[in-house]
């Protein structure tokens, strides 16, 4: 019930705004913010009541919905989805507050899209029924389509149509995969009863994987991302980078790895190669971008490459690192987009050459920007370090692929420092241009927007155990499934009975060692 409230409260907000839009802009913004905050506060209940000692799904609700199609309203969360749910409810009120003064036309439509999007995103993370999952997955497209298309920049229409078509092409394949699974699952869409091995598992794996790879986006499916990011309004970029991209990696760890371990094994070299290409390529392209927003967009391609690398390391530390890095990227990149949006609102330019010496005029802005930049680079003590370190260490000790990949991926960390710091230097230091002299520093609202994100950036960096401890058990289950010897088949029920998932000694020991190192 609690989970249903969290998912559908934003939708209630949509209806409330639709009915009360006549009351004026402030009322609309107020309703949106209250609903956003309320959803976040209620979702905290999910955290406090979450039992970290089990990998089973919690807060489960199952209601009959369309018996004729073998689908039910079945939701629940485990360690994998918990943080993504909280990230979504956390970022939405921040986005509402960040968009306070920047929406000129159609404010009520904007807030309605944002809240509808929140329901869609939460639904994707909580669905335990493939049909329901697909419904949320597709319905999420519409508000995002409007967010970019109506409130975006100059080439918004091109960007939004490209975004929708890419995603739809991917989900078309996934739909075929879902339907094929349905018939192998005793005519039911229920995720929890899915048990392999499946017929045509390699094709099914690809059907799911390509849909998720487009969303991630994995090189070479990434070309929609820079366009969508650059044209989207600030808040759209934040949601896009913060949550939407995570749906791809979430899908991989939820469906691709545990359901089709043998196929995942077979395609690991190819996928990891693409991930490493993405890391290096994203970083190199980011380096030469003259546009701040495009730079951040390409850095996403690079960062998400790390996440995919960690997921396919099939090592507990690597996968946990990926899970954590998904949250980290949502915070850091979300924050970067917010900061770029703030400077754009003042100067109406995002070109790096237009700036320089800003730290003199805008010390608060520069300080926050510095912290976020360092978090994105992966400075020890901030969140990015923990995630990246666990991914790289897990990939190195895990036997899933050659260590050469890890060497190249590590180069990506250095490149990240190059493009981020170089950008920071050109924007913040040097001589202050005359046109930029009148730029005001951040106001109270903007500081309030940034502070919660900074809090978590430091928290995860200093004490990641708060976050990792909830993820552990669920990741173990996934690892057991993907590491199971092919001769054993793979275990049946995705994760209900703990005893069945007694982990083999080696990965467990490795994983604890790495985790300790990460925390030091």
């Amino acid at each position, binding site marked *: 019930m609690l989970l249903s409230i969290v998912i559908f409260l934003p939708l209630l907000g949509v209806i409330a705004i639709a009915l009360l839009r006549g009351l004026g802009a402030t009322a609309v913004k107020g309703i949106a913010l209250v609903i956003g905050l309320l959803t976040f506060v209620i979702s905290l209940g999910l955290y406090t009541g979450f039992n970290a000692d089990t990998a089973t799904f919690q807060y489960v609700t199952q209601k009959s919905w369309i018996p004729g*199609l073998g689908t039910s309203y079945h939701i629940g969360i485990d360690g994998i989805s918990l943080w993504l749910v909280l990230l979504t409810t956390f970022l939405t009120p921040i986005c509402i507050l960040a968009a306070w003064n920047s929406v000129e036309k159609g404010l009520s439509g904007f807030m309605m899209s944002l809240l509808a999007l929140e329901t869609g995103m939460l639904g994707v993370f909580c669905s335990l029924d493939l049909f329901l999952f697909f419904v949320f997955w597709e319905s999420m497209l519409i508000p995002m389509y409007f967010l970019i298309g*109506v409130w975006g920049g100059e080439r918004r*229409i091109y960007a939004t149509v490209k975004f929708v078509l890419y995603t739809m092409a991917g989900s*078309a*394949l996934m739909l075929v995969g879902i339907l094929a699974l349905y018939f192998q699952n005793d005519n039911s869409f229920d995720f929890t009863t899915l048990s392999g091995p499946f017929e045509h598992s390699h094709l099914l794996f690809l059907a799911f994987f390509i849909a998720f790879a487009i969303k991630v986006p994995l090189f070479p499916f990434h070309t929609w991302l820079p366009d969508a990011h650059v044209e989207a309004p600030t808040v759209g970029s934040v949601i896009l980078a913060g949550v939407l991209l995570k749906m791809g990696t979430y899908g991989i760890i939820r469906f691709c790895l545990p359901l089709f371990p043998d196929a995942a094994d077979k395609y690991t070299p190819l996928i990891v190669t693409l991930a490493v290409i993405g890391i290096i390529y994203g970083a190199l392209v980011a380096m030469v971008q003259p546009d701040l927003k495009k730079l951040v967009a390409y850095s996403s391609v690079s960062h998400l490459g790390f996440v995919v690398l960690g997921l396919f390391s099939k090592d507990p530390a690597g996968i946990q690192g990926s899970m954590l890095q998904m949250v980290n990227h949502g915070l850091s990149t979300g924050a970067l987009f917010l900061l770029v949006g703030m400077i754009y609102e003042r100067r109406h330019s995002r070109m790096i050459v237009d700036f320089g010496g800003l730290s003199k005029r805008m010390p608060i802005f520069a300080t926050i920007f510095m912290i976020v930049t360092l978090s994105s680079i992966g400075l020890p003590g901030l969140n990015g370090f923990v995630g990246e370190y666990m991914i790289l260490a897990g990939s190195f000790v895990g036997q899933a692929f050659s260590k050469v990949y890890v060497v190249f991926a590590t180069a990506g960390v250095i490149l990240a420092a190059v493009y981020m710091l170089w950008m920071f230097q050109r924007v913040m230091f040097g001589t202050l241009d005359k046109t930029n002299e009148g730029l005001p520093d951040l106001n109270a609202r903007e500081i309030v927007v940034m502070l919660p994100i900074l809090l978590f950036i430091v928290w995860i960096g200093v004490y990641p155990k708060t976050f990792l401890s909830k993820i552990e058990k669920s990741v173990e289950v996934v690892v057991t499934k993907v590491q199971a010897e092919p001769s054993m088949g793979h275990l049946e029920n995705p994760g209900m009975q703990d005893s069945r998932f007694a982990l083999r000694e080696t990965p467990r020991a490795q994983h604890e060692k790495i985790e300790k190192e990460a925390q030091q």
Partner: protein
Amino acid sequence: MPIEINWQLLMPELVIALTLIIVLVFDLFDAISKTVLGWMTIVGAGIALWVSIQMHYTGTVGVEFNDMFKVDNFSLFFNIIFLVSTILVTLISMSYLDRGGRKQGPYYLLILLATLGMMLMAAGNELIIVFLGLELMSLSLYVLAGYFRESPASSEAGMKYLLLGAFASAFFLYGIALIYGGAGTTSIPAIAEAVTAENKSPLLLAGMFLLVVGFGFKVAIVPFHQWAPDVYEGAPTTIAAFISAGPKAAGFAAFLRIFMEALPTLQVEWSGVLILLAMLTMTVGNIIAISQTNIKRMLAYSSIAHAGYVLIGLAAANNDGISSAMLYLLIYCVMNIGAFGAVILAKTEDGESLLISDYAGLGTRKPLLAMFMTVMLLSLAGFPPTAGFVGKLYLFKAAIGSELYLLVIVGAINTAISAFYYLRVVVTMYMREPEEELEFSPYASTLVIGLVIAAIGVFLIGILPSLMLTPAQNSVF
């Protein structure tokens, strides 16, 4: 020998026939407002709808007239589709005719006649009855397509439809003749008995393929679709909505009945052809729709593509396939009439604005209209939580059940292609600035009622599909 007739089975048809006579008689009186005739049509169709639902619910089924007329859940479900279409089309027609100062009597009369023809097609247990229904429906539609006599486009549409339709009818009749030659009977159950694995005479096969051609023309399947865009564009918009909905469903009703019930033994022969036609129809319809600038033509090509989706259900040739095709036809009728209704609503004072580019800025100037249009187009594109999504998903599911993976992949990719041109209209309405200020005529209440019903239907079936899905699943013959 007195003939015993179970009148109860014929109730829906009788109600429509009675309404028809009442409309005919009242049209003679000049004193009454002609809008009343529209309301009479709606009430009549509404009663027939209610009776059909009751009969479906209570299971009042049977055969009549020497086994020539078969009332079963299948025909009753199709009655529901036809009558819903008729009601919605009448609702969107009333203000359309009124404003143009058109003669209204014959219009409603012909619509009712066409509806009666469709009901005969769905209930025909005998190829001759099916043909009778087909002709009753088609002849009424030819006149309706050319209803605006003074408009060259409308006359052209009527003429074109008549010529090609007559051609198709000839194919169909020739097919019946050949099947009679092969099976020795035109009764559907008797054909099913006569056609065995050993007795597959070439006459039967030739007859079957001629039937495919005949139906192909009627429901606009590629490569027999060329008439559709011209007729849709030229015909009055309400009639375009009507032709794209009810008659298409009727064509598929007879298609399903004949192929699944009379010729299941020949499935090996026809399923391959249908798979090929389905892929061709979806792909050609959707790709040509992309390049259209006129919204009526775009909807015409989209309607061709949707015929292709329905063919997926036929090609699957299992129980799920039949019921998914039926459910999809119902959903399609509601959303397509809704889309045409929105086109009618977007009328300027001096005429119709039919170019997609004219819709720029509608999102802010006419929010209600833009919202209706968006809902219908999203449903046509198959986005959840609208009915179009459920319908398409169920069709795909049926096809996967018959292991037609390639067909489903083609269908799913087509869904993505179709999203492009449906969303382009939405883009134009919400994201582009208008080039010139067009004066839009005020909303007509009946039209808005029709659109509200369609929108509620689209969402209701989208969120609670069981409402219509269970009846559809219970309607397989």
